[in-house]
């Protein structure tokens, strides 16, 4: 086996973390017991959903790519839990965690994976392309880094409309080398766009470790300095820290209309996608260490047990309920029909789907043989 690549995560992450230094941050001090349990529940739901997806994939019911969020749950849950009603988000293809956290239902998410008509995109998007504009969730994007300018554009629109909102724009550690990301950074800083770029640094872009992909003197987020943007590093295994530092960036966006780059250190437990045998680029010991010592859900559970917010029975009940929900979603997806063939040529053009006396389009727009 190839020599494993050393993770470039900060030293502090290489040790098992102690109690969070951010528990008393104002963003966290205001959390009720019920809020804290809800955060736990959300992380558990994401994990059980993803684990149920593995089974469906192995049954051969999910085609194409399936990128799992297992190990990274504290990022979607932590960052999104501090947002308000005019705040928006957009992400890449590892998009299930964000979807569940904003309130998309498991049934339609699971059905989408199987290409079913009941899927959140009617079976037209798949795993990488979830959307819920009614929940301020703008996808789910398959091209690495391509969503970065869109996120800046969403935030630009919020500002243009005079709303006090921001757009969390997520990407991976591999995406930071895409030109579109740098163009988005420059525009965000130049135009005072209230966007927060969140780098979910799980150490690898597919099979390429960060040190093999990225020239950087320090951190990935530090590149923000080149654009005069604020930046911060975040321990993504600590929900309190994720919330506290995201809240600070959101305040900066709301109050000063200034962008931020947050680099959140995390780890993915499974291969890049289900088709990655995960054998050439990292060490099993490394995965084991993260799973056992730095798992964000276990650590949150431990914190809440110590705080007396949770007890063992409640933990078991939450996990059982999440598993049950995922199981039911899988059954829902199985039982759902595929879209009719006529669906292939629908949802391409608004004007075509709504053709009438008021629409301005004429002529042939869908071509046949």
């Amino acid at each position, binding site marked *: 086996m190839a020599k494993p690549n050393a993770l470039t995560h900060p030293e502090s992450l290489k040790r098992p973390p102690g109690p969070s230094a951010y528990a008393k941050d104002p963003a966290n001090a205001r959390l009720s017991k019920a809020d804290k349990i809800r955060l736990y529940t959300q992380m558990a739901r994401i994990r059980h959903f993803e684990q149920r997806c593995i089974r469906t994939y192995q049954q051969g019911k999910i085609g194409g790519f399936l990128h799992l969020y297992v190990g990274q749950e504290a990022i979607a849950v932590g960052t999104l839990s501090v947002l308000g009603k005019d705040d928006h988000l957009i992400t890449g293809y590892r998009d299930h965690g964000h979807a569940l956290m904003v309130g998309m239902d498991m049934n339609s998410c699971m059905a989408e994976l199987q290409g079913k008509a009941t899927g959140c995109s009617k079976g037209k998007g798949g795993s990488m392309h979830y*959307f819920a504009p009614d929940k301020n969730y703008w996808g789910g994007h398959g091209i690495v880094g391509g969503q970065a*300018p869109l996120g800046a554009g969403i935030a*630009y629109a919020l500002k243009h409309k005079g709303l006090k909102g921001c757009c969390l724009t997520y990407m991976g550690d591999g995406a930071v080398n895409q030109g579109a990301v740098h163009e*988005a950074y*420059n525009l965000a800083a130049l135009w005072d766009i209230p966007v927060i770029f969140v780098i979910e640094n799980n150490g690898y872009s597919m099979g390429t470790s960060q040190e093999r992909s990225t020239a950087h003197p320090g951190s990935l987020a530090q590149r923000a300095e080149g654009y005069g943007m604020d930046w911060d590093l975040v321990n993504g295994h600590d929900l309190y820290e994720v919330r506290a530092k995201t809240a600070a960036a959101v305040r900066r966006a709301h109050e000063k209309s200034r962008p931020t780059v947050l680099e959140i250190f995390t780890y993915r437990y499974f291969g890049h996608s289900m088709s990655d045998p995960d054998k050439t680029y990292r060490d099993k010991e490394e995965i084991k260490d993260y799973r056992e010592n730095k798992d964000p859900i276990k650590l949150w559970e431990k914190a809440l047990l110590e705080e007396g917010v949770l007890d063992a029975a409640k933990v078991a009940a939450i996990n059982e309920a999440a598993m049950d929900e995922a199981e039911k979603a899988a059954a829902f997806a199985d039982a759902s029909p595929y879209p009719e063939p006529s669906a292939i040529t629908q949802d391409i053009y608004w004007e075509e789907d709504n053709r009438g006396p008021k629409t301005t389009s004429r*002529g042939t727009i869908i071509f046949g043989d």
Partner: protein
Amino acid sequence: MPVLSYREAIRAALREELARDENVVVMGEEVAQFNGAYKVTEGLLKEFGPRRVVDTPISEAGFIGVGIGASMLGIRPVMELMFWSFSYVAFDQIVNNAGNIRYMSGGLINCPIVIRGPANGGTNVGATHSHTPEAILASHPGIKVVCPATPYDAKGLMKAAIRDNDPVYVMENTILYNDKGEVPDEDYIVPLGSADVKRVGADLTIVAHGRAVLTSLKAAEILEKEHGVSVEVVDLRSIRPLDEATVLASVRKTHRVLLVEENKPFCGVDAQLAYLIQAKAFDDLDAPIGRVSSIDAPQIYCKPLEDIQIPNPARVVEGALKVLA
């Protein structure tokens, strides 16, 4: 009726739409303070201010992506490309993001963006600045493409494009910016997907779009005067949607067709048209379909040769005579 240049007609469309709808934002390199690289946007900054008329850095993927993102929230950005040739650095945004998002979201998200700018050869600027990507872009379902040839059409199509709820890419032509024509003051649109018979004739149909329409009209004059042939010229105006009915009606009337475009021939717009005509009007044809397009090479710099590379009236006449033979 007032006479405006093609440039002024587009400007009038932008001004009227900026005034009509608060969500319209004009954006691009040099559009505001510099008054536009081709002065299309002249005076708009003064009239509407920097919130509505926005200068961007040279960052096509970035600012077009920003426009697309903003359009998903209901802004109607009208993005200027200094040349459509520069769209290639933003291809992912233009095709994947603008063109696919409605589909991939199962119809939940629209992208009412307009991207406009010149897409033409003939200006002696070499291959990198002379692309005509209407066929490339129109080959992507989700995208609309229009190519106005006259000031009247330029204004009407631009206004329709801005009001349209899908991404519409408007391909202008630097050589036409000074062309003059009658343009009504009042509000009107030219619906996307409506072709226009620019000259009525009986013996031959020429189908063209963009500046090739004007070239074809000149050729039609020559054909009439020197060869006694009556030529009908159909201006597509819109590539996608495509007005098949008008094209086919003309073919059924004249029974002979010449297709003219400034694109390169391989997979050009006319390749699709030729297929369509033989599929739907085969029995009406008295001769094989003829075609005149740009000579199949990267755009040459040398001006005398570039003038041959692009269809000119002489080449169109020659092509027509072959179809009529």
